[in-house]
């Protein structure tokens, strides 16, 4: 099997079970890349993951740079296509389905019924991130302040990140 195809299949299989997105991808990716296939060591894995999360961009791209680390440009392309392609096709098909059913009287309420799920899952990923970020005593304080700011102030949420970065510099 060509290397890029191997990468494509590996990352496609990871992405297709990642209900909930990049946050649930990481543990499974770790199992495959470090524990089973020994493609990188523990330290490299956590450094690449931290880098992808700190840098701007969707967190799923952590998988892309793992592919790049393992196999250069073919690894990068194979991994990225695997991560994004099959799930995008699925999303495309589902979008078509909802379009075809647009006039069904039950579709709107049914979709509205999924909203609590989205709210709960967004909240949960926030809590998981907060836990992971609590690496110094004042981190939870920063998290709570940023929460209140984004919740209540109609301003750009990115100011919270800038303030967090400055506080990190000052405090650590």
């Amino acid at each position, binding site marked *: 099997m060509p290397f890029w195809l191997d990468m494509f299949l590996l990352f496609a299989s990871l992405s297709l079970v990642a209900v909930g997105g990049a946050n649930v991808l990481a543990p499974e990716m770790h199992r495959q890349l470090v524990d089973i296939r020994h493609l990188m060591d523990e330290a490299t894995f956590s450094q690449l993951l931290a880098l992808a999360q700190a840098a701007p961009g969707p967190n799923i791209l952590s998988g892309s740079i793992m592919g790049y680390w393992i196999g250069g440009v073919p690894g990068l392309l194979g991994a990225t296509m695997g991560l994004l392609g099959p799930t995008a096709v699925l999303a495309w098909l*589902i979008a078509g389905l909802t379009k075809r059913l647009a006039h069904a009287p039950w579709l709107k309420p049914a979709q509205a019924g999924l909203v609590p799920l989205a709210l709960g899952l967004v*909240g949960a990923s926030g809590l998981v991130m907060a836990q992971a970020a609590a690496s110094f005593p004042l981190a939870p304080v920063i998290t709570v302040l940023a929460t209140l700011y984004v919740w209540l102030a109609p301003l750009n949420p990115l100011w919270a990140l800038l303030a*967090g970065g400055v506080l990190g510099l000052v405090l650590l």
Partner: protein
Amino acid sequence: MTTQKPSLPNLFLGFMKVGCMAFGGAQAVARRVMVEERRWLTERDYAELLALAHVLPGPNIGNFAVMFGRREYGLAGALTCVAGFFGLPLCLLVGLVSLYGQFGQIAAVNAAMHGVAAAAAGMVLGTALRMGTRLKPPPEAIGLALAVLLASTVFKVPLLVIVAVGAPLGVFAALRRAQRPEGRAR
């Protein structure tokens, strides 16, 4: 709230902005850009499409980009949104990986990154609260959202199970509410 239909270049630029400003996940910025700044969708439309994107496997906002793009401009729209969203951040990351050897060791960079991570978590939490306050979900929906939150964080229930149980429950509750003549869901 009035919404505006984006042009294709607008879609590309908007999703590029979301991608490039997505620190610790794209949730917070995506909602900010699409609902509050550019008014492509209403709060409710956004939440419904996002919920669908969450239930599907893969990147949440990536799925959202495909579905929203298709809704606006078909295949061209979906490709435009996805390319806008992932393109630039991917190039940036590849550059950073090559530089990381020198740059990751600097203590100041690490300290700032720890602060950013703490704030990013607050950004995601604040976004969930803001969506919740603005959507004013009925009591049973609030209950379900909290149950999902607890199941995921405290009880570590696998996500597939949460979705398999939570999605039918939510849909069932919403359908019942819609059928009651006095129970207007919105």
